[in-house]
């Protein structure tokens, strides 16, 4: 399932609700891998007060659907749940959830990483930061995901 939402969401509640509703998972999944992305109050040495997430409707869902299909072809997945926030967000808000269910941990770990990295590089979302000095700036590009690289 793929959800794009302008409302704040609790990723843990979403996971619990989704899992409870998927009767096909019961007794079958041995591994659940989760990635939750959360808004920081800093970026590249600056203090960030809030952020606006823009996206390209329909292309966003199309690209996420393709990424999930690619993951399903490579790994034995039972189910997946992807939620991404749009609109105005504040520090500590959840921005993205990637959850995958599989019978074994290797498939779950690898597929969740693949989906998240593909989302970062291919899905048309953009972030605009509101800084505490009243300046605004677009995030120019995503990093490789490591603090010290």
């Amino acid at each position, binding site marked *: 399932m793929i959800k794009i939402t302008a409302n704040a969401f609790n990723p843990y509640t979403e996971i619990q609700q989704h899992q409870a509703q998927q009767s096909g998972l019961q007794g079958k999944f041995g591994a659940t891998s989760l990635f939750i992305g959360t808004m920081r109050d800093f970026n590249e040495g600056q203090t960030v007060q809030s952020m606006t997430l823009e996206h390209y409707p329909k292309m966003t869902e199309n*690209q996420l659907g393709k990424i999930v299909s690619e993951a399903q072809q490579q790994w034995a997945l039972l189910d997946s749940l992807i939620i*991404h926030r749009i609109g105005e967000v504040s520090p500590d808000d959840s921005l*993205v959830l990637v959850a995958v269910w599989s019978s074994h941990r290797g498939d779950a770990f690898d597929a969740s990483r693949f989906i998240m990295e593909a989302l970062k*590089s*291919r*899905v*048309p979302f*953009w*972030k605009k930061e509101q800084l505490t000095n009243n300046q605004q700036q677009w*995030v120019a590009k995503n990093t490789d995901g490591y603090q010290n690289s």
Partner: protein
Amino acid sequence: MSIKVVYFASLKELLGHSETLLPTPTSTVSVIDIWQQANPDLTIPSNTLAAVNMEYVSLEYPIADNDEVAFFPPVTGG
């Protein structure tokens, strides 16, 4: 019949609008031709990505009638 051109994020702000409608070209044109027709005074920024009907394409990709052509900067979701 026309070609819809859409822009997002910093590119939309740079251009001052999010959408342009172009008349259907009378000859074969590519994505970069559409940019030049829509923005004759502005060279396409070097990091611009392009999509046609919501699929990523190269700037040389040929355009058909009723296509939606999108231009946008590198994506920064997640």
